[in-house]
Each structure stands twice: as structure tokens, then as C-alpha cells.
């Protein structure tokens, strides 16, 4: 994490509007390889939109996104086939873990995990299966490989979602509030898995309302409000000693409730 190394993720001037609703108004941030970035911010501030833009599930109106050596300038992105090839290259650089896991209900846990590697990356099945079993072990679900999602608890489902994202070996793993749809007693097991990833050197960007968790694991914290990054720095800076009034208000509110 030295300043001299080029960051793995670089976002510059990202904007996105839905009609008149300007959700992202010029977001800038960078994340180095192997770091955990926590994204905090009030509801509706554009956190989900930012993550979806990184995975190109939402096409930004303008701005630069670079992950690893794939870079797109959305202001000049033409329409058509070439653009689709470009965006899918960028998309492949990141893996996405959804708030509501979005597992494929008709496939077993193992099939969910190998679907991308086998069908999209065209890796040999044996190799993909061996890999997937290792990932399932890592998230503590070796025994569940042949079950279907409906047979699992919410926390287990979310952990399969994580394994599915990791199986594609992306440069960055994106999490959108991975625990907020879970019963409180299931939150811990999912956070433990994510924490584990950080220690293994995965680069992650996590949108979360779990301030204490962010404080523990995040190398960098972004506070977003009104579609811009209001404050960023280490967790000690942003959470421990915020310099912006809006950040302080947000933290006070959320910590009072939580």
C-alpha cells in the first residue's frame, strides 16, 4: 500500500442520473490492491449505484473507471457491439455480492459456484469443481455442496453468494450491504467470512451500515452523501475523528440506533 504503486481501482468524475435524479455527481476514489474499502452513507446517497456502476450493471453517464488494466471512459463510450465487449471486459474484473444473494434457485450450491467458471470462462469442469469445493470450504459450507439454495439459512445463502463471486477470480469483490437482509444472529458468520477475505489479500469494496465492522476491517472508508465522496481516509480518520459535519451527523444517528 505504498503511495508509489498504481492503485488497483481508480474512479474519476463518475456521474449517473436517472431522469432528473442526479444520483452520482462526480465520484472520485481509488483503492489499492489487497485493501478493504468500506463505503458509508445515508440511504439514497448513491452507494448501490456506485457499486453497480463499477460492475457495469448500471452504465454511468460519464467518468472514468479503471480496474486493473481495463479502463473505460464512459463519456466517450460508443453504443453497439464494441461497447458491449468493452463493458463485459470491465465487468469481468469485479465480482458482485448482492444484498439479497440472488442465487440460482434451480441449481445446487456447487452448480451455483461453478456456473460462471464453466459456462463463461470455459474452464474444465473438474478444475472448476475442485476450485469451488475449496471455496465452499473456505466459507464453511463443504457439506452443503449438493443442496439447493432453499435448503439453506439466509447466512449460508449469502456465503454461497460470496463463493460464487470469488469463483471467477475477479480483481475486486464488491459487496452491497451483504448482511442487511439477514436476521441479527446470522450477521456474524457472514462478516467473519468477509474479514477472512481481507486477510487473504482479496481487494474488496463493501457498502455497509455495520460501522463497527467497517472500523475493524477497512483500510479505507468513504463517506458518500448527495452523490459525492464527502470524506475519505482511514477508518480511524473517518469514523474515529470525522472532519465533516455531515459525516459526524450520520455517524451519530447510526450509532445511536445501532
Amino acid at each position, binding site marked *: 500500500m505504498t503511495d508509489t504503486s498504481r492503485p488497483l481501482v481508480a474512479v474519476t468524475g463518475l456521474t449517473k442520473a436517472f431522469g432528473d435524479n442526479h444520483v452520482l455527481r462526480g465520484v472520485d476514489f481509488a483503492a489499492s490492491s489487497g485493501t478493504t474499502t468500506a463505503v458509508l452513507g445515508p440511504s439514497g446517497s448513491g452507494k448501490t449505484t456506485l457499486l453497480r456502476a463499477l*460492475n457495469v*450493471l448500471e452504465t454511468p453517464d460519464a467518468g472514468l473507471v479503471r480496474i486493473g488494466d481495463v479502463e473505460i471512459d464512459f463519456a466517450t463510450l460508443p453504443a453497439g457491439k464494441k461497447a458491449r465487449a468493452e463493458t*463485459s471486459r470491465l*465487468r*469481468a474484473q469485479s*465480482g*458482485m455480492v*448482492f444484498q*439479497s444473494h*440472488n*442465487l*440460482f*434457485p*434451480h441449481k445446487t450450491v456447487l452448480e451455483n459456484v461453478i*456456473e*460462471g467458471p464453466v*459456462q*463463461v*470462462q470455459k474452464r474444465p469442469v473438474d478444475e472448476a469443481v475442485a476450485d469451488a469445493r475449496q471455496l465452499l470450504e473456505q466459507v464453511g459450507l463443504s457439506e452443503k455442496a449438493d443442496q*439447493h*439454495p*432453499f435448503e439453506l439459512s439466509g447466512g449460508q445463502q449469502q456465503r454461497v453468494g460470496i463463493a*460464487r*463471486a470469488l469463483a*471467477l477470480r475477479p480483481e475486486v469483490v464488491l459487496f452491497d450491504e451483504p448482511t442487511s437482509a439477514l436476521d441479527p444472529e446470522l450477521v456474524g458468520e457472514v462478516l467473519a467470512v468477509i474479514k477472512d477475505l481481507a486477510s487473504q489479500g482479496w481487494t474488496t469494496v463493501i457498502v455497509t451500515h455495520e460501522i463497527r465492522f467497517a472500523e475493524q476491517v477497512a483500510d479505507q472508508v468513504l463517506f458518500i452523501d448527495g452523490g459525492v465522496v464527502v470524506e475519505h481516509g482511514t477508518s480511524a480518520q473517518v469514523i474515529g475523528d470525522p472532519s465533516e459535519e455531515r459525516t459526524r451527523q450520520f455517524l451519530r444517528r447510526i450509532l445511536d440506533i445501532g
Partner: protein
Amino acid sequence: MRHALRVLALLMLVLVVTPSGAAVAAQDDRPVVRVGTEGTYPPFSFHESDTNKLTGYDVEVIKAVAKKAGWRLQFVETTFDAIFAALEAGRIDVIANQVTDNPERAARYGLSDTYTYSRGVIVVKKGEKGITKLSDLKGKTTAQSLTTNYAELARKAGAKVEGVEGFAQAAALVVQGRVDALINDNLAALDYLNTTGTDKIEIAGNAGDEVSEQKLAFRKDDTQLLQQADDALAALKADGTLAKISKKYFKIDVSVENSGEADLSGGRAVRSDAQIVKDSAWPMLQKLLIATIPITIVSFAVGLVLAVAAALANISGSRVLRGIARTYISVIRGTPLLVQLFIVFYGLPEIGIDLPSWPAAVLALSLNVGGYAAEIVRSAILSVPKGQFEAAATIGMGYWQTLRRIVFPQAARTAVPPLSNTLISLLKDTSLLSVVLVTELFRQAQIAASAAQVFFPLYLLAALYYWVVCAALAAGQGRIETRLNRFVAR
């Protein structure tokens, strides 16, 4: 289950392939002449109850003509009301079905020399005293095939005419008292009385004094075939062949005028209902297996592809594709299937698309299924949560991959119950295919019914066959649904 299906498919394939395979064997360069005939008008054109072979006076006459003229015949069976349409559309080349000469027909078609002299008779319920001659029909109701000469006769006499599909149906209406009378050929009426042994109806009198003349009908411009037919008929009259065929059926020579009273006794035996059903069970089952079921399966498969295409077009971003899909769906749902069948079979040849019966049937039914199933498929696709599309996108899947591997398997859960209904309707809709000259289960029931001159038990048998297949389909639907619901928390 799967194994049973495979065996069934193989069986059907064998049944379909065997007869056609045998037919193409010999090299033959005689011209092919397609003969339109009802196959349901005994004693002129009907199927033998034991062998199911097409026979009758008209059938034997046209065969004798063909032999003299050097034609190779191909019989096409159709209801009388579709027979002139088939001739004009070039589906057939000649009608051998007791076509009575009248000025309109003589102007429109090429009519041969006469091969039957007969007269029309009025048939009424036994004991009905009020109707003995044509003028008594004023204000009464008669049952006729609408395009026959007799229907015209009844109309001119001031009767109301109910359309029916053949003699047996008309006779049933008379017996049931739903109509007052029917007019038909003397010989056909005698055949009915003889074959059924009925005492419920009787011949009340002649329909006018005129003797009518029945002829072969060709297209007006087909003068060469007409000339060949006339030459052949003259030769057959001269060498006694025609008289011989006639005497076999009527004991007299109806190919000349005033040869006396016909006698049809000792023709086909009177059979009990049980015997009739027994005789017809296998031919009907055959048609179920080689026509009804295969046409249903192929049409459903093709229709499903059309439905998926239309559904995808309908939810696509392209305004043009959406417009095409919506127009297609709207046209199909807004028009009767019978009309669609007529357009595909009799209409398309006008613009140069001349499809044989089976492809025309499959095309019309597929288009129909596609239009109805498109909305089912569309709402099934939309029932798959958006998150599933996004999860597929995020792991890098493309459009088709997402549909095939993620969306369709889940959409199937929603789509199977309504699609099963579509399939079951389709199976039953195949009973309309006689209008495009496909002999399927129901047409075979009509054929058997007309030969036996009773139709109720045979239609009941047809209903039973349809029901058994539909029940099997419903059972299959249950199994598929259980399979698809396996992965969903209850």
C-alpha cells in the same frame, strides 16, 4: 416415463413411414390425377368397414376410367362442402362424388358424360303424412350438405336448409325430429335404409319428376383430362364395365336412363353398434397415433419456438420487433382457427405458396399455438425476479446463455400449467383438420360413421380416445410441475 415416450415415438415413426415407403418403390410415368371424393357417402364413396379401404360405385368408376385413360390415381378425401374449393385451388383434379349436372356447374366446371342417372327423393320420419312432394316442403326445414344440388332444390321449394356434413347426420336429424325432411339421392337413401335396417325413416316421395345426371367434374380449362374421361366412359359403357359395376351395387344399370327400380339388399350387412365400434376401434386408434398425436407434437414444438420468439420480441427494446410481435399475437387471437386453416390451405396457393395438407396443418396450428403461448411465455419470463438477470449478468453471461440456463428453467414453473392447457386445446383442435384434407382421428370417426350410417357410438369412441390422451397429458403435467417445484421453499 421417458422410455415409454421414446417407444411411442418409434412406433409412430414406423406407422408413418411404412405405407409411404412402399408407395414410392415402383417407377411409374403415368400422369397423376388427384381425385376428390367424400369417402363418407355410401354406396358411392365410403370405406369398407372391415378393411377400411376406400370403395363405392364412384370410386370403382373412376378407377375404371383411370385404367382406360392411363392415369395414376391419388384419392383425396374431403367433405362435400370443401370439394369444389379444393378443385378450384388445384388441390384435386377431378371430383368423383355424384356431382349432379346443373346449369351453374356446367358453366363453371368441365363436366363429363353422365355415369349415373338417378332421382332425388324426400326422406321423412316414419309416419309423417304431410310431406310427399317438393311443394309440401314450403316453410319446412330440411337437412342438406349446403353446396349440393339437393340443397338448391329444397331452397327453391321454399324450405329452410340446415347444413350438415353428410347423409348419416341428416338422417339423424330427421329421426330426432329436429328437421322435417331431407332430400337426397334415391340410391343413397336406399343404402341408408338397407345398412341401418332402420324403421324410423322412410322415403316419402320423389323430389320432382326430373331425372338427374351425375358426372365427373374437372376444372374448366382442363379440357384434356375431360376429353380422356369422356373417351374412357364411352368405352366402359360399350364394353359393359360400367353396367357391371352398377349391378354390383344396385342390381340395375344406373349408367343408362330408366333401367328400373334399384335394389340394394344384400349389400353391406346390418351391424350392431357394438360390432361397428369394434370394427372402427383400430382404424381410429391408428389415426390417433399416426396423425393426431404427431401433428399435435410437431405443431406444439414449432409453436413454442414461435411463442418464445414473439415473447422475446415483445419485451425487447426494439419498437419494430415489438410491433411485429404484437400484430402477430393480435391477429392470431382475433381470428378463428378454422379461418386460419382455410387461409393457409386455400388462400396461400393464390400467392404461390402451395403447401400439402400436413405441412399446411402444422403451419396453421403452429402459428395458432405461437400466438396464444407468446403471452404465456412473456409473463413467465417477466415472473423471473430481476435479481436473477443481474446475477447472470454479473458472472458474465450473455443474453442467450442467461435465457437458456437461468431464465427459462425458472420461467417454466410459471409457464407449464397454462402451456399444458394450450397443448390440450391443440390436441382437440386437430379435429378441425379435415378441412385441410388431413384424415385424423375425428375424420376417421366420420368415415366409419358414414359407412355404418350411425355416428353416435363412433363419436363417443372418438371422445374417449381424446379424453384418454388428455388425461395422460394432465398426468404428465402434474409430474413436470412437481419436478419444477422441487427447488422452491414451500
